[in-house]
């Protein structure tokens, strides 16, 4: 019913525009979504183009997150920027702190007359890409949260009834999994899962200055006892054969789980749809474990993922089209489709309601786990972080964790190096973007 209606409008629009010889406004959208997620971006963009006739949006994959961001920066400097660009969590500070590079999403929507209410968005989503006053600068797009996936067969074979809720529990079941012939655990992004979200889960600050939201003059707080304890455990697990590190690429570790070498894998809620297609065993999904000796009730995780930003310097008419697309994108129907097909979380309350109403979670209970984790009580430090040159800081984390795991360096000296390098970068960023 609805689609026919839309089609009718589209047809009417097309005829009208051909009669009036009305020029269609061309818009470009650079993104970093590949594989299944990339297909869904194309689907949504096509639906948007069919839904109206004034604007034509072209979506182009520019490689990985870093590639996309660099291409956007280069294009902006060359006054050739796309209208919309997908920027990942680690790059948010660079684009938000460069005054005048983007047209804040909230302003853009309000200026083009669209109704905008921050409270339409899930609380965990609302602030991650907002400035210190809470104004939304980027439109959260593919938002995900780290989850634990477990191979049900493997757990059964090892005689384990329940997946671990805490790391203490993990330590008791890991030897059983090893005895059953499995590496107990791998994970796909040590900065994201074993650093950033470690802090939000245990309600610990990552950096001074309100995790970097209040100022760029900040210092990193990674060199703390809790995180050091965690990583010395990870190193022990690796040495015992409970933990597998297959490389820093996301896919390397996920694939080891799919191949059945690893019994449990920490990935993203957005990995769900793909795992469903690739695994030949039954798997389950549960919350990110925590240390019960650090916190009694774990807090919610960061939203992570990436957001859409609109570059400054385009015409009013073009921004109107961008606003139209954002409206389309955040409509409950589009959000539900995206949530269902990719496993990324739905970002609005309305979409979450719709998902529940349409019985999505009855059919696919796993799809709700991410939503539930994000709806857990949020702590003082689970709103997000805003740190400059964070791409390089992540590089430093990766690097020092790899050195730690290969035994080249001790836990203490690895975290000392992380602190030194991060603060050096943050100082530089502060001097550049003051």
């Amino acid at each position: 019913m609805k689609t026919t209606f839309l089609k009718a409008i589209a047809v009417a629009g097309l005829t009208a525009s051909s009669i009036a010889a009305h020029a269609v406004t061309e818009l470009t959208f650079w993104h970093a979504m590949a594989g299944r997620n990339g297909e869904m971006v194309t689907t949504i963009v096509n639906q948007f183009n069919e839904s109206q006739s004034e604007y034509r949006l072209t979506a182009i994959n520019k490689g990985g997150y870093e590639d996309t961001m660099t291409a956007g920066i280069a294009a902006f400097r060359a006054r050739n920027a796309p209208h919309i660009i997908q920027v990942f969590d680690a790059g948010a500070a660079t684009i938000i702190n460069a005054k005048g590079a983007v047209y804040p999403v909230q302003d853009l929507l309000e200026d083009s007359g669209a109704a905008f209410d921050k409270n339409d968005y899930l609380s965990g989503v609302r602030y991650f890409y907002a400035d210190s006053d809470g104004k939304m600068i980027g439109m959260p797009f593919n938002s995900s949260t780290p989850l634990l996936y477990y191979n049900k067969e493997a757990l059964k074979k090892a005689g384990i009834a329940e997946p671990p809720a805490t790391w203490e529990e993990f330590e008791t079941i890991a030897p059983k999994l090893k005895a059953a012939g499995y590496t107990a655990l791998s994970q796909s992004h040590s900065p994201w899962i074993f650093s950033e979200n470690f802090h939000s889960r245990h309600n610990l600050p990552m950096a001074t200055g309100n995790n970097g939201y209040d100022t760029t003059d900040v210092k990193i707080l990674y060199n703390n006892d809790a995180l050091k304890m965690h990583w010395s455990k990870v190193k022990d697990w690796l040495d015992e054969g409970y933990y597998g590190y297959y490389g820093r690429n996301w896919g390397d570790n996920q694939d080891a789980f799919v191949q059945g070498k690893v019994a449990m894998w920490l990935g993203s809620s957005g990995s769900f749809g793909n795992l469903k297609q690739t695994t030949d065993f039954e798997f389950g999904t549960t919350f990110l474990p925590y240390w019960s000796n650090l916190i009694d009730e774990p807090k919610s995780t960061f939203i992570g993922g990436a957001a859409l930003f609109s570059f400054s310097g385009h015409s009013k008419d073009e921004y109107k089209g961008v606003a139209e697309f954002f409206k389309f994108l955040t409509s409950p129907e589009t959000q539900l489709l995206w949530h269902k097909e990719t496993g990324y979380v739905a970002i609005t309350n309305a979409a979450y309601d719709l998902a529940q109403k349409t019985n999505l979670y009855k059919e696919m209970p796993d799809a709700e786990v991410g939503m539930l984790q994000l709806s857990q009580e949020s702590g003082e430090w689970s709103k997000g972080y805003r740190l400059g040159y964070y791409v390089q800081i992540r590089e430093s984390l990766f690097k020092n964790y790899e050195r730690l795991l290969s035994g080249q360096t001790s836990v203490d000296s690895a975290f000392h190096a992380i602190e030194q390098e991060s603060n050096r970068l943050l100082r530089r960023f502060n001097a550049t973007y003051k």
Partner: protein
Amino acid sequence: MQSHPFKHSWVPYIFVAPQIIIILIFFLWPAGQAVQQSFYREDAFGLSSEFVGFLNYAEVLDDPEYTSTVLFTLLFSALVTVFSIALSLLLAVQANQVIRGADTYKTLLMWAYAIAPPAAGLIGGLLFSPLVGDLYQLLNNIGFDFNHNRNSSDAIFVVVLIAVWKQLSINFIFFLSGLQSVPNSVLEAARIDCPGAIKRFWTITFPLLAPTTFFLLVINTTYAFFETFGIIDLTTKGGPGGSTTTLVYKIYQDGFLGADFGGSSAQSVMLMVFVVVLTVFQFKFIDKKVHY
């Protein structure tokens, strides 16, 4: 060499103009900007910038990671150069002496010149991949705890191996033609003076190949510095633990991925100074050789 025979007012300018115009627009202009950027601190989007003198240079030099990158680059180019030169010399000497199948060997040993570094990186990386790599399996089955995604020495081994693999062909071509240009009379005389084949090689043939070897040293060093980018990008991405980051890869990481233009421009300029030294060295040698 000719003593500049034509004196003409405009013809030479017409001839040299296309080259010069392209250089002015696509070389000097951007290179000048790179040098300029190295003295500024600028946000990624070019919205604000501030002159900071040599501060970017000072910060780069003060960074312990930069030092380890320099050391790795030197180690890497030494390993690549030594192994690819030694192996290709061995192959060229043998190929120069076989009669049966000589052409087939030549073709089989020189085709790899044409493979793109990223293609070499992709294949090599997958051969060692913990998920599907046969070489990974093999090495672990025979008792090595091999994982180039985790152990730096393994990673260095993998990138060096792939880089050598890709570079063997070109060295082979140069050595083989170097060997073929050794006059027969010299070889005959050598055979009488010096009956031992190995000794003959080191006392007669190798000195004759010295200019070629020296030339290849320069070529291979440049290769290891710049052209291995595609290999590293498709295998280790500079890891694990930053252990396979070359200078060019670091410029790419800081400037390209990290959006720190001032810092990466300063690194570029420093690299340029190094290349100047290397090229001047090379040029002196080439000019000398032409005149002998």
